């Protein structure tokens, strides 16, 4: 198993009456709510937490990209990952990812990911999301019905740029470059391991299988509701006669660990409430711009989780509802271990993206929960895929052998 400690970097100071005063946490929330001087400390605290996760033994540390979003303050995850290359040495840097349809030219992603891979000595996991409709269409203005075509072309360009040893011309519909010449190039050849966040479309299953990419379902609604979608993926894997390596798949899960189940509710209840009721308060009109999803995907009923979230009644859900419905995995180390094992086996995933900073959780609680998970849960989950020797070379990083030792200037 590979465990990645994943940060969303939410703004932790949304007021109590947030839901009443604002229709959405995303796209049109006035940025006057953001206070840059407070943001300074928050960014550094969040980066410290990612570094802490490496120190207690997580395999990866993860960041992602969002725009105009108060629960995801990383318009550029690459900037965050760059700081982490200097202060970590073992963990994979999981950038999940860069919304490649948004970069102009998308060659920028090939270059920046190559920089990160070189800086980190070959520790980059490169994520290529299509991006949510909120980010891609509403915040960044990409035409919904052309988003996927643009994405596919960007992917093609990036892979060619990494593979080529000589400059070449690229005549795409959306990008035309006379000289594609990617300096630097990544350490990991032909490319870093690539993870694709998906939301249930068959096209994305096939895209992952065609290219040997790991399919990552980044949900906030827990593993029970993910079962149907992941079964669809594994069915496709079997139809395509691909091997069933669990590392072909990953899942994101909100996790809280305390000494006892009761203690977990006491410690984390308010922050979980902040996350589900403020961070996920998205105006349904922004969830799915018409044309963003293919007709086929809509007809299969795979609604975006934000459309579902809007339909779901988070405000009326109690801690017990969230725990019993397994939206969150929370409780004593033994409770969390049992449920994590159920998650891993039932979804057949080799990657788990652990969401352990939740909403407005203060630093001491984040570290407490993280440490308990690393010490008392993770060791018991390490060997759940013995048939695969608990590792699949195709879906994990290949750091170079002799890396330079970093000296921090102040020391």
């Amino acid at each position, binding site marked *: 198993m590979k465990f990645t400690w994943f940060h969303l970097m939410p703004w932790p100071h949304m007021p109590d009456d947030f839901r009443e005063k604002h229709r959405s946490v995303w796209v049109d929330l006035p940025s006057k709510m953001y206070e840059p001087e407070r943001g300074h400390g928050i960014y550094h605290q969040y980066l410290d937490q990612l570094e802490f996760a490496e120190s207690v033994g997580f395999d990866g540390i993860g960041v992602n990209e969002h725009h105009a979003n108060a629960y995801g303050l990383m318009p550029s995850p690459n900037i965050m990952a760059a700081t982490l290359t200097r202060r970590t040495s073992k963990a994979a840097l999981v950038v999940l990812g860069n919304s490649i349809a948004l970069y102009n030219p998308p060659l920028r992603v090939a270059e920046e990911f190559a920089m990160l891979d070189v800086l980190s000595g070959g520790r980059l996991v490169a994520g290529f999301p299509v991006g949510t409709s909120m980010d891609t*269409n*509403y915040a960044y*203005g990409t*035409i919904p019905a052309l988003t996927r075509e643009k994405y596919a072309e960007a992917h093609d360009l990036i892979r060619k740029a990494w593979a080529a040893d000589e400059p070449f011309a690229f005549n795409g519909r959306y990008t035309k470059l006379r000289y594609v010449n990617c300096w630097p190039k990544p350490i990991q050849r032909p490319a870093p391991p690539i993870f694709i966040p998906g939301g249930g479309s068959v096209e994305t299953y096939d895209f992952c299988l065609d290219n040997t990419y790991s399919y990552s379902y980044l949900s906030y609604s827990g593993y029970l509701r993910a079962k149907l979608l992941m079964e669809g993926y594994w069915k496709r894997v079997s139809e395509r006669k691909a091997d069933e390596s669990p590392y072909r798949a990953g899942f994101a899960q909100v996790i809280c660990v305390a000494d006892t189940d009761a203690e977990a509710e006491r410690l984390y209840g308010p922050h979980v409430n902040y996350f589900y009721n403020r961070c996920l308060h998205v105006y349904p*009109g922004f969830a799915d*711009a*018409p*044309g963003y999803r293919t*007709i086929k995907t*809509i007809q299969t009923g795979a609604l975006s989780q934000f459309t579902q979230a809007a339909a779901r009644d988070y405000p009326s859900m109690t801690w017990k509802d969230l725990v019993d419905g397994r939206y969150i995995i929370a409780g004593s180390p033994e409770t969390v271990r049992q449920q994590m094992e159920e998650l891993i086996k039932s979804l057949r995933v080799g990657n788990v993206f652990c969401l352990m900073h939740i909403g407005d959780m203060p630093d001491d609680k984040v570290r407490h929960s993280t440490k308990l998970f690393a010490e008392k849960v993770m060791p018991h989950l390490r060997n759940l895929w013995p048939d695969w020797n608990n590792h699949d070379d195709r879906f994990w990083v290949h750091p170079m052998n002799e890396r330079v030792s970093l000296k921090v200037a102040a020391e």
Partner: protein
Amino acid sequence: MKSRFLTLKPSGARIQIVEAGKGKDLLYLHGAGGHMPNDPLIAALASKYRVVAPLLPGYGQSTGEDGVRDMLDVTLHALDVLEALNLKKPIVVGHSMGGMVAAEMAAIAHTEVTKLCLLAPAGLWLDDHPIADIFSKLPYELPGLLFHDSKAGQKLLTSGVNMEDPEFLNEFLVMNARRLGMAGKILFPIPDRGLAQRLYRITAKTLIVWGREDVLIPPVYGDAFKRAISKSRLVRIAKAGHAVGQERPAAVLKVIRDFF
């Protein structure tokens, strides 16, 4: 109203053509919402004209939307359809997005479009008068945006179907994704694809019609179109919103008859 189909070469796109009435030829290009059920404007125009109303790819039963990506594609598609229909010097009427397409046709092929009627057309953008973002609207918000009398408008839009009904909503989702997915190619995120710099080319005799109560594309845009098109006249219709033709079909028919 009858439907027939036209297959375009070489794309193979199959285009649904709604036809009604007798008289002089009138080409009607719908807005981003497509035709309304028993479209009141088409019905009114058909009392005096032979109305020919093609549906854009992605609308109704028309196909071929994947091959139409930008404004030039849409304009040339519409000119191809016009040519294939073999109409005699038709009045080209376009509503909202259809007005934007009609204006583009008249600017690009100004010898072929000689009579033009723009009903609250899209295509311009004034910073001081932003046009509402139709793409992020929920179904229940649309009647208020499209009609002066939103209750009557809701009935027209749905022919009385309950908009809260899950089955209706599911169908709506698919239909809406096809239609607005296509519309987004020329309207998202800002409904401006450079028409302003081409309007000077329009030589057609042009009637511009606006609902006085239009809250989607405010009536001030009527003045901007009027200023930019040399042989044009602007008429404002009282007690009408953005769907001016559907809300006041008789009044719109009358101004068209008076002008052409």
